[in-house]
C-alpha cells in the first residue's frame, strides 16, 4: 500500500460515501417526519439508473405505464372519496391534472427520439418519470395507515420494497445496465487523476445538502416539515396537513434517490435488485446519527464509504461483513446512552 493507492481508495470511498450520505439524509428525513423507515429508498436509485439507461438505449421505458397505472389508481381513490361526500360528485381537479401529466409522459416517452436527446434532457426526463412515484407510493401504501405504529409502517415499508424490486425485474429485465459518463475528461491533481464522475457526484451531493439546508431553514414548506418532525400533533394543531408533509418528504426522498441513481449509473453496473444493499449502507450511516442527527448521519455514511473502500483492498471477501458489523457497536452505544422513550401519539 503506497500513497497513490491510498489516494485512489480514498477517492473511491468518498464517491460512494457521498451517495450513501445522500441516502442517509433521505432516510432520516422520511423517518423523522412520517416515522416510516424507508426501505424502498434504494429502489428509487435503481429505478433512476435503469430508466436513464433505457432512455439512452432509445427504448421507451415501460416505467411510464407504472406511473400511469398508479396515477389512475390514485385518481380512483380520490373519486371514491368524493362520492362518499354528499355534495361534490366529480373528480377533483388535482386528480385530473395528475392524470393528464402521466398521460403526457406516456406520449413523450413514446414519441421523443430518446437516444438522441442531450444527456441533461434525458436526466430531466428520468426525474420527471421516477420522482412522481414517491408521493404516489405514499398516497397508496402509507397515507391510509399514517397513524399506525412504527412497526406496522416498517412492515408495509418492507412490503413496498419487495413489490418494487419485483416490479423492477418486470420493467427493466434481469440484466444490469450502465449509462454513458457525463463527460470523459478528468482532473489531474498532482499524482492523482480525479475521475470526472467523482467530481460530479461530490458537487451534486454538496449542492443537494446545501439545498436541503436552505429549504429547511428558509422556506415555509421546509419549516412546516421540520415542525412535523419535532411534534406531529402540535404541527397538526397549527394547521400543517400531515398528508402534505408525508407527500413532500416522499417527493424529496424520490428526488434524492433518483438523482443518486443517475449520478452513479456511469461508474457502476446496477441491477434491478441493487438498491437494497446501497440504501442499507446509507441506513448504517443514519443509525450512526441515531436516526436524529443529520450531520452525524452524513459523516457516518461517508465513513461507511471509506471503510468499504479500504476493506475492499485488504480483505475483499469480507467487505460486507466489515461494513455491516460496524452497526453493532453503534447500536450498543446508542442503546446504553440514550433513554428509552415510549412511543406516544
Amino acid at each position, binding site marked *: 500500500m503506497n500513497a497513490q*493507492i491510498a489516494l*485512489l*481508495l480514498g477517492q*473511491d470511498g468518498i*464517491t*460512494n460515501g457521498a*451517495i450513501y450520505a445522500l441516502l442517509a439524509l433521505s432516510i432520516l428525513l422520511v423517518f423523522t417526519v412520517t416515522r416510516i423507515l424507508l426501505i424502498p429508498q434504494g429502489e428509487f436509485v435503481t429505478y433512476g439508473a435503469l430508466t436513464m439507461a433505457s432512455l439512452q438505449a432509445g427504448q421507451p421505458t415501460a416505467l411510464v405505464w407504472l406511473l400511469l397505472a398508479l396515477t389512475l389508481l390514485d385518481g380512483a381513490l380520490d373519486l371514491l372519496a368524493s362520492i362518499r361526500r354528499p355534495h361534490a360528485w366529480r373528480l377533483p381537479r388535482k386528480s385530473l391534472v395528475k392524470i393528464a401529466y402521466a398521460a403526457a409522459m406516456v406520449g413523450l416517452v413514446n414519441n421523443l427520439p430518446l437516444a438522441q436527446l442531450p444527456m441533461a434532457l434525458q436526466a430531466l426526463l428520468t426525474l420527471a418519470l421516477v420522482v412522481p412515484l414517491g408521493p404516489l407510493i405514499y398516497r397508496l401504501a402509507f397515507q391510509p395507515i399514517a397513524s399506525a405504529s412504527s412497526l406496522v409502517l416498517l412492515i408495509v415499508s418492507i412490503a413496498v420494497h419487495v413489490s418494487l424490486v*419485483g416490479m423492477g*425485474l418486470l420493467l427493466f*429485465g*434481469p*440484466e*444490469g*445496465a*450502465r449509462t454513458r459518463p457525463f463527460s470523459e475528461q478528468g482532473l489531474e491533481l498532482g499524482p492523482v487523476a480525479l*475521475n470526472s464522475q467523482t467530481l460530479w457526484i461530490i458537487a451534486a451531493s454538496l449542492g443537494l445538502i446545501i439545498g436541503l439546508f436552505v429549504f429547511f431553514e428558509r422556506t415555509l414548506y421546509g419549516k412546516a416539515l421540520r415542525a412535523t418532525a419535532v411534534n406531529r400533533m402540535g404541527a397538526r394543531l397549527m394547521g400543517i396537513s400531515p398528508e402534505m408533509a408525508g407527500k413532500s418528504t416522499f417527493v424529496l426522498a424520490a428526488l434524492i434517490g433518483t438523482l443518486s441513481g443517475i449520478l*452513479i449509473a456511469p*461508474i*457502476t*453496473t*446496477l*441491477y*434491478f*435488485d*441493487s438498491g437494497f*444493499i*446501497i440504501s442499507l449502507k446509507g441506513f448504517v450511516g443514519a443509525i450512526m446519527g441515531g436516526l436524529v442527527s443529520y450531520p452525524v448521519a452524513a459523516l457516518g455514511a461517508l465513513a461507511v464509504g471509506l471503510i*468499504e*473502500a*479500504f*476493506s*475492499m*483492498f*485488504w480483505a*475483499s*471477501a469480507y*467487505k*460486507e461483513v466489515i461494513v455491516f458489523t460496524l452497526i453493532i457497536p453503534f447500536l450498543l452505544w446508542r442503546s446504553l446512552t440514550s433513554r428509552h422513550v415510549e412511543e406516544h401519539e
Partner: protein
Amino acid sequence: MLLKKAVSTLLLSAACVSLAQAQVTVGVITSAAGPLAMIGVPQKNTVALLPTQVGDQAIRYIALDDGSDPTATVKALKKLISEDNVDAIIGPSGSPNAIGVISFVAQAQVPLLSPVGTAAVILPMTAEKKWVFKTTQNDELIAKALFEHMARHQVKTLGLIGTADPYGENWAKVATALATEHGIKIVANERFQRQDTSITGQSLKVLAARPDAVLVAAPGSPAVMPQATLFDQGYRGQVYQTHGAALPDFLKLGGKKVEGTILAASLMLVLDEIPDSNPSKKIAADYTANYEKLYGSKPATFGANTFDAGLLLQAAIPLAAAKAAPGTVEFRRALRDALESTHELAGTQGVYSMTPDDHSGFDERGRELIQVKNGTWTLLRD
C-alpha cells in the same frame, strides 16, 4: 365373486389404457425472479421450446419458479415429486439451489438434469449424485483451454478476481491447481460481490501485483465490472474470462473496455464461424432462431443449457419407455440408466457422452476459444 372379477377386469383394462396413453411428465424449476433472474429468465423462456413429443410419447412440462430461494426450490421439488409424480426434473438455476435438493431427488429416485455451473453437483460422484446430470461444461474443461492458451503465450503471473460465491470459489480452486501445473504463479486472488458498486480496491490490489494476465471468474454481467475497473485504472495486459461471461450483455455493458478479452465457452457465441460439419451447429442455430422468433432477443447460453436437458431426455425416454411405464419408479430408474448411457448426443453446447463417473459428458468439442474483436465474439485460432 362375479362383481369382484368385473371390477378387477375393469381396473386392469383401465391400467392398460393409461399405460398406452401415459405421457412423460417433466418438472422444470427455474429462478426467473430474484438475484438469479439473469440466469433463470432465459431458462424459463426455453421451456416453451423443449421437445413435446418423442415417438408416440407425449412429454408434458410443469414449470415452477423458486425466486432464487433455495428453500423455495426444495418446496417446488417436493411438490413436483409428490403431487405431480414427475418422471424427471430439469433445473434449478442456481448452484446453491441445486446442491440443496440432491438428497431429495436421490431419495425419491427422480433424475435431475441441472443446468448449473458448479461441478460440485456431480463431483465427486456419490450414491446420491448418481441421480444428477449436469448440462454445463465443467469449470475444469473451460479452465484447461484458458490455461493452455496462457502457457502458449508465456503468461507467467496471473491475477484472479472472482465472485464471493460457489462459482468464484470453485474457479479459484480449479485455477490454482491448473496454474501450478502450467508453471504460472497466481500473484493476486480477490473476491467481489455481484451487487458491488465499486471494485476499485480489488482491482488496485491486482494492479499492484503487476500480473501478466488477469482471469475474471463471475457468472453473467457482473463479469464486466472488474474488467472495466482494471481498464480504467490503466491495466493493459491480457484479460481472460470464464464461460460465465458468455452472454450478449457482456459486450453491451463492456463496450470498448472489454476489447481483446479471451474466453472459452460453447460454440453458440461464434456460430457463424463454426464449420457445418460440427454436429452442434445446426441444433444451436435452430434453437437460437426459434428463441429469437418467440422472444425477439438472442438467448443467453443459460437457456441453451436447459434446452440440452430437454434433448437428453428426448433421447433417453424411448429407451426407458421400453422397460416400464412412465409414472413408475421402474421408469425413473430406467430413465436414469438411459441418461447415463447417453453416447455421442449432439446438443447446443457440444456433444454429450455420459459415463457412470462423468455426468456432464463434455469433451473439448464443448468449448471454443473466443476473443472479443471489434465489439463482437470471434473464434480464436492459435
